[in-house]
């Protein structure tokens, strides 16, 4: 198969995203598009650890928060560019990811998930209680300063920026699927003992995957904070947020390059739609889409554990080989 035939799905999604700002000028629509791409990229980042390495984290919000806070704090307290903040966030996340990846290396399944939750909770406590430096639970408003250097961009520019990040992450995962590193990682995920017996340094690979995933998450955390313009510790370090990263990837297909983006398209559009239609009904009703999330998550892991990407591959195979 040719390159286009093999990646028609990605071509459709990313091509569509690239063309939309030319055709549509509606700010609300473009806003949804930026969020779809950012959430997709975040889930892709989670996917590196959760999907490819099998290190399922429910504390990835920790790295998101590190990225968001680094840029917001450097920007408001030291008048630095968010790009520098992004670099600092990446550096911190690399360190934190390596530490947590190394420390919880022996842990599997629920134990690993628990240790990541604990880590994000520690950061939440620090961010919300260290009032002098982080403004505590009030959060930090990120001022809008126009210009590329300060990431004060219009909607169209944001779409392209988010698209570049999304494409980079997608490309990285494509590489993971076809590289020696990726194959060895898959080996570790499927059967760690067998992989180790073959001389694959399983523990080191897992630490590398978690560290990579942390840094990628942090970059999006910075972008998100600059885009939305506000950093609230109870949101950026929340368990709900961590679940959300995982949710997109699971629905789309864990351990596939395009899966996180498919999941993000579905979930983010659903959220935007439900928010818009239900927000006027009653204040508490915004919670409805989260109930839907929960139920969808239960149903998907039970009935379609391979996600949308896997499902379409299965249907495709069935269509081509008539039984």
């Amino acid at each position, binding site marked *: 198969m040719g390159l286009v035939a093999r990646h028609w799905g990605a071509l459709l999604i990313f091509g569509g995203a690239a063309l939309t700002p030319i055709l549509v000028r509606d700010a609300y629509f473009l806003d949804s598009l930026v969020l779809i791409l950012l959430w997709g990229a975040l889930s892709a980042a989670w996917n590196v650890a959760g999907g490819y390495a099998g290190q399922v984290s*429910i504390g990835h919000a920790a790295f998101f928060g590190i990225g968001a806070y680094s840029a917001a704090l450097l920007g408001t307290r030291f008048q630095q560019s968010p790009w520098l903040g992004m670099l600092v966030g990446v550096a911190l996340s690399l360190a934190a990811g390596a530490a947590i990846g190394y420390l919880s290396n022996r842990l599997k399944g629920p134990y690993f998930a628990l*240790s990541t939750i604990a880590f994000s909770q520690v950061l939440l*406590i620090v961010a919300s209680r260290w009032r002098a430096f982080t403004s505590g639970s009030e959060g930090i408003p990120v001022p809008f300063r126009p210009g590329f250097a300060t990431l004060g961009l219009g909607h169209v520019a944001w779409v392209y920026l988010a698209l570049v990040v999304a494409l980079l992450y997608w490309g990285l995962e494509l590489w993971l699927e076809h590289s020696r590193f990726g194959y060895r990682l898959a080996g570790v995920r499927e059967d760690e003992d067998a992989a180790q017996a073959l001389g694959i340094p399983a523990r080191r690979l897992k630490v590398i995957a978690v560290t990579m995933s942390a840094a990628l998450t942090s970059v999006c955390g910075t972008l998100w904070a600059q885009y939305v313009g506000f950093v609230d510790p109870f949101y950026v370090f929340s368990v709900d947020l961590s679940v959300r990263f995982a949710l997109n990837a699971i629905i789309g297909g864990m351990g596939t390059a395009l899966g996180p983006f498919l999941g993000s398209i579905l979930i983010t559009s659903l959220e935007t739609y439900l928010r818009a239609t239900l927000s006027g009904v009653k204040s*508490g009703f915004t919670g409805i889409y*989260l*109930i839907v*999330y*929960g*139920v969808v998550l239960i149903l998907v892991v*039970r009935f379609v554990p391979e996600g949308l990407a896997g499902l379409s591959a299965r249907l495709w195979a069935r269509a081509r080989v008539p039984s």
Partner: protein
Amino acid sequence: MGGIYALIAVGLTLIFGIMRVVNFAHGEFLMLGMYLAFWAFTLLSLDPWFVLFVSIPLFFGIGLVTYALVMKGVILASHNVQIFTTVGLSTALQNLALVLWSGDFHTVRPWHALTPVRLAGTAFNLSQVVAFVIAVTLTILLFLFMRRTHTGRVMRATAQDRDAAILMGIDTDRVYRLTFALGIAAVGAAGVLVSPLYAVYPTAGLQFVLLSYVVVVLGGLGDMVGALIGSLIVAAVEVAGSYFFGTAWKEIFYFLLFIGVLVFRPAGLFGQRGAETLGM
């Protein structure tokens, strides 16, 4: 508080020990218990202590239904499926509460929450003291049930070796159902007991359940005596932490303790070594 932690943790550890599933929705059942007590108190002026008699069978039933609808299908599935099933359940229940009862903080103030008691020079209120006594009693009853009764033995046998249990003619599905229902009944009772002490709101369960993870891991996942001892250790760390560093920072100590235990003794202080690498 040690007693309450024990009751929450014992349900969690029971479910984990026998079903090998970490119930990430445990805190949400606690929250539902708190709401039950709140509504009974506000609408019917029922004292939380009386609500306990209703809550235990009610939550046992809720546990049975949840098992049949949600847990039964994933009991043999991979860890990831199980983790995200209970995480999904947690998200759904939390937001169901938010939609039905809004995010407002509610309080339950029966007479005993306002009755001071002095014990060993420290001031408590009567609710705290009675909650502790009832929670410890229930924990011990549950423990005796597991140790002394035939059903308890059957449950422990299933935990040790599922296949052997099936070969001995044990209906493992019934065991899992009973286990889950008992665990939920315990956490529901804990919810009712803490309602006079803490504000009731949709995410109220989260703080407690994070704590009970600490307790359970400290005592060794699946170990009931460990859970009891672990809860006392956590309560002690909490008191010591708030005494030396102020209440604002106390939580950080048990999370650090938690990470420390996970790193150095993942099977818990008294658990079998190596359990964590099997993902057990």
